[in-house]
């Protein structure tokens, strides 16, 4: 066996393995003994056919194929050992030629991670700002949710709720026909057709109106896109929105816990602040990770990205299953082939692999470890937060795999925590 390393790039070694004819012959002989036992050839009892007959009966190529399939992993192992390289995943091997037998193996190697000086990265978190406007918007939304509708005797206006009888045709065919629909007239409402809402203000109770509308080019029902629809609309009732006063009573109606309007406002503002802080923290972490990754040199074999893509696809699949859509249908809906979807995921997968590699290395560098007690605490936490089947959850989490994955999650979390501390300046450059 002769092994030559043709080149190494992208953390992949390209090996050329040339087998000696004697080695191949030996493997052929083994294959013959294995295959002859199963082959039933007319004129021979099982296992009694001589090799020449078997070769003629099965074809020399199929014998060779079997021999090579057996020879390959073994030869590959030896080649890897000889070259003193460490493979991290199954290689892709192709048979370049058969006489003499030459394999070409592409071996994914351990990723190389060169951390930059991540202690030098200094970032400051974005300050969290909460304006009164934001609180007001939420309150306004609440107010609308708790609005009451009262019938009025006046022409309809925007923001009014009207009861409608709609009759409409497209090229003589019925389009939408509904009686007594409750419809709120809003500006730029795209439903049922853009521009529909604009025709309604000014109509009185009991009034009928006919108008034409052009359906937009991107109308969801493709066969109707761009066509003209005739509408006949009758308004039977007009209701006006009555927003509740912003007082203590309103606060109590939102939630009986609130006695005064001020306490409601306070709670909303506190919640918003919490959300904003959480968001800011995540963004800050992301920025730090990005900076650290940017600072490092990472090279990994494409296999890792492929694996990550497969995992992402798998996750998507599971989501789809939950919503009862098959893969085919989903692909049809987003108008893509599976291949395109994979390609689309590639940058994301690459990014995720890179950052997880970098984080892993930093965890090593910073000697971040997770104590058993911490894992136990986290598991306990997970069980507690499970809404139902606590026992089942307990069982599920009580396996070494679960512990392992929890440990990994915790390690990552701690690593990020450490990075935040470093970048935020609470640990100085020496790591003290």
């Amino acid at each position, binding site marked *: 066996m002769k092994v030559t390393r043709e080149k190494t790039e992208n953390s992949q070694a390209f090996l050329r393995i040339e087998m000696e004819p004697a080695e191949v012959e030996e493997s052929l002989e083994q294959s013959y003994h294995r295959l002859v036992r199963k082959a039933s050839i007319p*004129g*021979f*009892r099982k296992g*009694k*056919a*001589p*090799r*020449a*007959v078997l*070769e*003629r009966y099965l074809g*020399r190529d199929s014998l060779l194929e079997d021999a090579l399939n057996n020879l390959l992993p073994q030869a590959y192992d030896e080649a890897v050992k000889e070259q003193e390289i460490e493979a991290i995943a199954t290689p892709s091997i192709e048979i370049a030629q058969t006489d003499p037998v030459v394999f070409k193996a592409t071996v994914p190697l351990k990723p190389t991670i060169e951390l930059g000086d991540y202690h030098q990265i200094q970032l400051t978190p974005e300050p969290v700002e909460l304006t009164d406007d934001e609180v007001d918007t939420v309150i306004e939304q609440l107010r609308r949710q708790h609005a009451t509708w009262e019938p009025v005797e006046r022409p309809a206006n925007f923001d009014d709720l009207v009861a409608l009888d709609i009759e409409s045709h497209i090229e003589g065919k019925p389009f939408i026909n509904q009686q007594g629909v409750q419809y709120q007239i809003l500006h730029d409402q795209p439903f049922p057709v853009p521009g529909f809402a604009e025709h309604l203000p000014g109509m009185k109770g009991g009034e009928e109106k006919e108008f034409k509308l052009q359906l937009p080019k991107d109308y969801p029902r493709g066969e109707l896109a761009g066509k003209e629809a005739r509408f006949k609309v009758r308004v039977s009732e007009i209701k006006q929105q009555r927003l509740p006063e912003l007082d203590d009573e309103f606060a109590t109606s939102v939630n009986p816990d609130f006695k005064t309007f001020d306490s409601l406002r306070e709670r909303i503002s506190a919640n918003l602040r919490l959300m904003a802080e959480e968001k800011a923290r995540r963004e800050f972490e992301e920025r730090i990770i990005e900076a650290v990754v940017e600072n490092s040199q990472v090279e990994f074999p494409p296999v890792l990205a492929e694996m990550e893509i497969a995992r992402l696809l798998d996750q998507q699949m599971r989501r789809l299953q939950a919503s009862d859509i098959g893969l085919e249908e989903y692909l049809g809906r987003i108008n893509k082939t599976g291949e395109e979807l994979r390609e689309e995921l590639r940058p994301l997968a690459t990014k995720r692999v890179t950052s997880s590699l970098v984080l892993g290395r930093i965890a090593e560098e910073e000697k971040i470890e997770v104590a058993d007690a911490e894992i136990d605490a986290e598991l306990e936490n997970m069980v507690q937060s499970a809404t139902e089947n606590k026992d089942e959850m307990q069982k599920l989490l009580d396996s070494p795999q679960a512990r392992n994955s929890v440990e990994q999650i915790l390690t990552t979390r701690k690593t990020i925590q450490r990075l935040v501390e470093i970048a935020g300046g609470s640990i100085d450059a020496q790591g003290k």
Partner: protein
Amino acid sequence: MHLYEVLRRPLITEKNTAIQAPQGKYAFEVAGEANKEQVKLAVEKAFKVSVTQVNVMTVPGKGRRMRGRWVMSPSWKKAIVTLKPGDKIELFEGV
């Protein structure tokens, strides 16, 4: 009969392959009306070898029940040809 009609097919079986190499004997199914002399000429012409001996035998057809009736498979003639030592017929040798 024409020489080309003599040999029907080579017989490649466990027993026949066992006597090929050590004894130089090859078996054929031959036409029922062929005689030893014709088999000899046919083999020599077809495979460019020299034949030293020809043994022939008639293999009787075997009866079996088929749809309730007793039917016979046809009898046929087998010839075992011994070649001059060193000669070989490639047809039997595998590809």
